[in-house]
């Protein structure tokens, strides 16, 4: 008696389990891919928020603060006061361990006495006594006194010279001996907490496992110095000197408000330009006084309407009459022009320049409105300065990029590294204030935070971009909040809606992910890419589907078995031609050829199917006749006839094309398209040819069949050109529908991608047609139908959903095609209907830009988002195609 051995049974279970796991692994693969794409792109839409980053108690009030990235060390810059004492202390990030380490040092800014040569650094920071009482600072230093500070650099007066110094926290790496000398347990503590405070009060930092250990230290460098400033302008005082630094450079505008005897505040503006000849290293600073048409705004107004550097060249200074003077710093005698604010928005209450030096956020109060409401607008200053500087009247108005209703702000703070502005607004209750972070490209409110304190003295954001600190009423405690907004400039609006970008004529969809400067306003609209993808796929389907479907019909319904077994494999082999080869040939061979034979390509494309049809009607080829009667083996002979006829027609049409190009378009359609000589009617005629043929053909004049057919064939082109001439009268075809001719245009990719799609659609369509059971064909033929009538009336309707799903799969492949899109199109992200224009498809965009995108940056995640949209497109398409094929197979079983 045979029985199965235990071992075999166990193997059976094991194998089944393994196979099931592997089988399901495919779903995991797809799910994993989807999860991965989603996990890489969803952070784009994470809501921005303010996070408390600690509260520090200040030994004495300070005008600014520099914070180290890793160690919680803050350096407080002195307020506008006589003494230049800096305080460095550890921020109590409400963890007890730091409280007891009362690390607190103070440094005295000193200038070495002697007139040291320009090159060496005259400034140094001398550590004064470690423990100093907060309220009575050490005796004032004899000559050095500090003025206002902004982002870590101070305006300093020593003797008669006015100078600007910048303070940074620097890292000095320990030498190997020093690291060896470190105690092991402090090294372990460093590994975990990344910073420690050693016994001798030095702060050690270790960024990551591999990087060496470093000691934090303060360093002062001189930006610029004007030696005899105070001797020239005796009554200027340090207290009301303001310095507006030119972004990216060390120089800028010095504004000093001096009280005149008739206690009017008279403000003088000096443009300081220092250019450093980095070969010789010597710095040449030059001070020029700025003459203004009318007096500049007062000191308080400078707070509300901050002066700004536009494109690092034009200096925009607020004037009393709520207009602005834009001074061209590169012009010898500082030529200025007047910029005005659009007055239909209300009267200007705030004006703050935004990061990027091309636009500014302005606030207008709406008159007679209770409760007081105001309107914020993002004004395009860059474009206004350019228009003004070369317009006759030297006057221009700032264009409005977007405007929105908003609460009146007490104070605006521009963000140094992102297009964000923090607006301090009256809070809900009387004693609370609300800080609102608003993103400037789209104008949406990114995040809000209400603060308990009633008065916010100095709301600053640090140079690293995220930390905001302000002093509460008693100016003794500084609250630090971190504004977490890694991808603030991305929102559904910025991705999919029309945005008016800086220095653009008007709102547009545009994709420009990176550029040279870091002040670049990134333009992440996906619409041009989606438009490019669909335009490429549509044109390639227009080329591929008729060819593939008709070829499938011929090879499954009419061709005899032997020829079919040769034709079908050759077409399937076509599917394995690598797309890189197709893309390359399209770019190197097809594009130039089309460029020199545009009209013949158009002519062949529009009239070839109709020519074939007319040939069929008239040319009485014996083998064609036999198609319906006896041997369909004649179909192979018909194929020979068609190849022969085809070659002649191709040659004839290309000759005709060249002839038309010479006569109607002045020898070159390309030149004609960009405005050259030529009659537009003919181009209209060319495009309307297929339409005219179809309409004339389907007019229901049945009886007079023959002469009518000849007439249509002969008259068709004439009628088309006639209509074209009529239409061209009052439409500008070239301008609105067509446009310039680009060598790598949509026709090239239509042919290249069409070539890749044809085999897929062909083989699926052919399988769908051949799976129609023969009994139906026999039934139709038995009723006396011809081969084509059987095909058209019985076989095609039955196989319709199979054909449709074949086209869907072809469409899916077209959307996903990458290499052809990269190589065969000019990759220009333009949105035009013009078939002669290039395009940029999503797949090509990812292939070109992802290798360079920084990991986890906004640009990187947006590329993943476009990959996700591509994935969802193909997913829905394929699922729909699969659903159709399943339904089609079920229905076929019923036949």
């Amino acid at each position: 008696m045979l029985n199965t051995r235990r071992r075999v049974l166990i193997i059976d279970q094991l194998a089944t389990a393994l196979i099931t796991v592997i089988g399901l692994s495919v779903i995991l693969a797809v799910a994993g891919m989807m999860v991965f794409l989603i996990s890489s792109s969803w952070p784009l839409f994470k809501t921005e928020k303010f996070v408390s980053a600690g509260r520090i108690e200040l030994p004495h009030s300070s005008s600014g603060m520099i914070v180290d990235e890793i160690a919680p060390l803050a350096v407080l810059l002195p307020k506008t006061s006589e003494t230049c004492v800096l305080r460095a202390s550890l921020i109590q990030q409400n963890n007890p361990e730091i409280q007891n380490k009362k690390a607190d040092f103070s440094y005295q800014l000193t200038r070495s006495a002697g007139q040291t040569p320009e090159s060496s650094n005259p400034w140094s920071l001398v550590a004064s006594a470690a423990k100093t009482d907060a309220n009575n600072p050490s005796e004032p230093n004899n000559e050095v006194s500090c003025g206002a500070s902004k982002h870590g650099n101070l305006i300093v007066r020593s003797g008669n010279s006015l100078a600007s110094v910048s303070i940074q926290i620097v890292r000095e790496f320990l030498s190997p001996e020093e690291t060896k000398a470190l105690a092991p347990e402090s090294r372990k503590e460093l590994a975990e907490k990344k910073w420690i405070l050693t016994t001798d009060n030095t702060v050690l930092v270790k960024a990551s496992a591999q990087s060496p250990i470093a000691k934090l230290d303060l360093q002062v460098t001189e930006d610029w110095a004007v030696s005899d400033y105070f001797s020239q302008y005796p009554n200027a005082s340090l207290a009301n000197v303001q310095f507006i630094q030119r972004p990216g450079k060390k120089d800028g505008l010095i504004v000093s408000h001096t009280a005149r005897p008739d206690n009017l505040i008279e403000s003088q503006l000096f443009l300081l330009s220092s250019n450093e000849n980095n070969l010789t290293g010597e710095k040449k600073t030059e001070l020029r006084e700025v003459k203004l048409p009318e007096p500049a705004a007062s000191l308080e107004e400078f707070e509300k309407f901050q002066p700004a550097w536009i494109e690092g060249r034009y200096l925009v200074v607020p004037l009393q009459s709520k207009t602005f003077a834009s001074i061209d710093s590169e012009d010898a005698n500082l030529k200025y022009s007047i910029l005005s604010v659009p007055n239909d928005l209300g009267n200007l209450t705030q004006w703050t320049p935004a990061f990027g030096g091309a636009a500014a956020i302005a606030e207008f109060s709406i008159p007679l409105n209770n409760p007081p409401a105001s309107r914020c607008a993002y004004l395009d200053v860059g474009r206004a300065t350019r228009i003004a500087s070369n317009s006759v009247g030297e006057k221009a108005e700032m264009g409005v990029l977007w405007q929105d209703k908003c609460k009146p702000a007490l104070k605006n703070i521009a963000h140094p590294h992102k297009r964000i502005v923090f607006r301090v607004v009256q809070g809900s209750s009387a004693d609370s204030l609300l800080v609102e972070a608003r993103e400037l490209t789209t104008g949406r409110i990114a995040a809000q935070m209400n603060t308990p304190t009633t008065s916010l003295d100095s709301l600053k954001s640090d140079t690293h971009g995220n930390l905001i600190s302000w002093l509460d009423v008693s100016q003794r405690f500084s609250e630090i909040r971190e504004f977490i907004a890694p991808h603030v400039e991305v929102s559904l609006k910025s991705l999919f809606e029309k945005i008016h970008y800086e220095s653009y004529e008007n709102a547009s969809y545009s994709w420009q992910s990176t550029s040279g400067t870091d002040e670049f306003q990134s333009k992440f609209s996906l619409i041009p890419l989606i438009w490019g993808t669909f335009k490429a796929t549509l044109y390639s389907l227009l080329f591929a589907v008729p060819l593939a479907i008709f070829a499938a019909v011929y090879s499954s319904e009419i061709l005899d078995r032997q020829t079919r077994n040769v034709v079908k494999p050759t077409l399937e082999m076509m599917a394995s031609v690598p797309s890189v080869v197709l893309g390359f040939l399209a770019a190197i061979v097809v594009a130039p050829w089309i460029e020199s034979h545009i009209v013949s390509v158009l002519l062949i494309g529009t009239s070839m199917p109709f020519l074939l049809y007319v040939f069929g009607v008239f040319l009485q080829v014996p083998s064609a006749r036999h198609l319906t009667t006896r041997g369909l083996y004649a179909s192979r002979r018909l194929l020979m006839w068609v190849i022969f006829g085809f070659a002649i027609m191709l040659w004839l049409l290309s000759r005709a094309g060249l002839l038309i190009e010479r006569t109607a378009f002045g020898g070159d359609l390309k030149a004609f398209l960009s405005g050259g000589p030529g009659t537009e009617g003919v181009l209209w005629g060319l495009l309307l040819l297929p339409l005219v043929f179809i309409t004339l053909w389907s007019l229901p004049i049945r009886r007079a069949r023959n002469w009518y057919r000849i007439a249509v064939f002969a008259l068709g082109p004439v009628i088309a050109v006639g209509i074209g001439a009529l239409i061209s009268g009052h439409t500008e075809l070239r301008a609105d529908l067509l446009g310039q001719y680009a060598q790598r245009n949509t026709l090239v990719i239509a042919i290249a991608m069409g070539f890749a799609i044809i085999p897929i659609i062909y083989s699926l369509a052919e399988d769908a047609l051949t799976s129609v059971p023969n009994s139906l064909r026999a039934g139709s033929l038995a009723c006396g139908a011809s081969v084509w009538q059987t095909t058209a009336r019985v076989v095609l309707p039955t196989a319709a959903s199979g054909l449709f799903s074949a086209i869907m799969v072809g469409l899916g492949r077209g959307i996903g095609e990458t290499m052809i899109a990269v190589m065969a199109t000019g990759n220009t992200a333009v949105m035009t209907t013009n078939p002669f224009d290039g395009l940029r498809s999503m797949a090509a965009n990812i292939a070109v830009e992802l290798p360079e995108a920084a990991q986890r940056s906004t640009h990187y995640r947006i590329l993943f988002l476009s990959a996700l949209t591509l994935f969802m497109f193909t997913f829905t398409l394929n699922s729909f195609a699969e659903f159709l094929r399943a339904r089609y197979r079920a229905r076929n079983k019923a036949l």
Partner: protein
Amino acid sequence: MFSFGSKQSDSQGASQAPQPAVLFKTAVRIRSRAANNATEGIPWIWVCAGALVTILLLIAGLFGVILSQGLSALWPHQVIKIQSENALVLGIPMRQEEGTDPNTNVKQMRRLVYQANRDFGVNEFAFVPVERLVESERPKDVWFVERREWGPFLGRIQTSDSNGVATDVDSKTLSAMLVGGAERSKQLLHIEKGALADLNATMEDLRLEKKSIERQLEAGAIPDDEATAKSSNVESQLARVSKDHAALSTQVQELRSVDEAIKITLLADNGQTKTLPVSQILRVFQPNSLSWIERLGIFFSRLWGFVSEEPREANTEGGVFPALFGTVAMTIIMTVFVLPVGVMTAVYMREIAKQGVLVSLVRIAVNNLAGVPSIVYGVFGVGFFCYTVGASIDQLFFQEKLPNPTFGTGGILWASLTLALLTVPVVIVSTEEALSAVPRSLREASYGCGATRMQTLWNIVLPKALPGVMTGLILAMARAVGEVAPLLMTGVVKLAPALPVDSHFPFVHLERSFMHLGFHIYDLGFQSRSTELSRPMVFASTSLLVAVVLSLNFIAIKIRSQLRKRFEGRGAF
């Protein structure tokens, strides 16, 4: 699909080809026939035939262009010499184009001539109006010299004897010198690539070991004395290895100096000369005085060189062996992954799973894997394999090499895995098709004999389905060989320093980046120094790639048609 009987013998009269009389008769009857021609739908059959013919012409055009340009790239062409207005043009005529003459800006056809001699102050390409081409003459004594650097040279070759007098060299002594030079360079290559490379590898490993010991010391993982003992023996090993290294490199130096001694001077038409060691020259021939058979001989030796040598001149010259090797290695690694997964998934869907929701979910997932754009695979590959899996592998095993990643960046393993994911649907679909072609009765017969499911599968079903699996695999390999987009980020580089498989210890280095034929075409076609110069090379590698892909495909279709023949048939009437 049906076809009417072929031999239609008709008792009333044999129907040979229609005699003239019949043709006349048919012509007369055109008018009357045309009437119901249209209702019969004959014209539509013409349109369908036209569509099929267009596709066939497109295919013929594609392969025609690739083959003609590809072969002409390796074919030793004639050299022409013309005295154009200002300069003497000596070079190989290439393609013809329509251009405007700069000074008279009249439109005329002109021929692009490749003049080589890049380091002789001659611009590489010159345009010659077509009319002037007819006066060109074909000098017999011009040499075409293929050099290791600076591209080919056209001109005269001279050897200076002891007292420096330059005399034109005759071909016999030249070929003797060449053979000697080739011999020496082969020896040099053998040493450098073999022993010296091994020594370098071991020195690298020792240095890494030293660094890891330091790191452990720093992290306090091992006590000091043990660390010093370890590092001292590493030091000694390092010393010994560098000693052999020094010995070997002196040997290489001697060989080089010997090689330097034997020189030849190249004399270009503009009088400039350049002397270089013979080993620098790869191949020499006189293009205009070659007999037809010699020309064929050179063509085939160039073809062999194209397939076996390393690329030179930033990929615009030399062979594509590393790219070919990389493609094949990647495809093999991919097959190791894709075959089991594909077959098992198909078996699961067809044999094991109940045809419920789960299976249709798997089927939709499989079809979608096929439909997903290949660039998304690249994105997934680099994001998931390289940065997540690879990075964790680096943390675990390759600590000391950090911060520069070993598995954390693109490599042949990750590229093959990405492509395996891309091509697994092809294998699944064709395996499932093969499994469903196995008639139910066979399975029931085997179960009848008491076989378990796996035994039935292993002994009955799979063997019969093998051809289907084979075609799926070959189609997958054909797709992988031609893919570029997913590889852009997961491991393909322009010029890979070393092959993924070599003689050092782990022999198969899965983390190395590699060269790929498809990327080679993309890179040469679009990112090379001058598209004009790299154009022949691109067409040559394109025809090689297309040849590889088509042969794979041909085998697949042969097996599939053989499989189909047994289960063909769509029901009687």
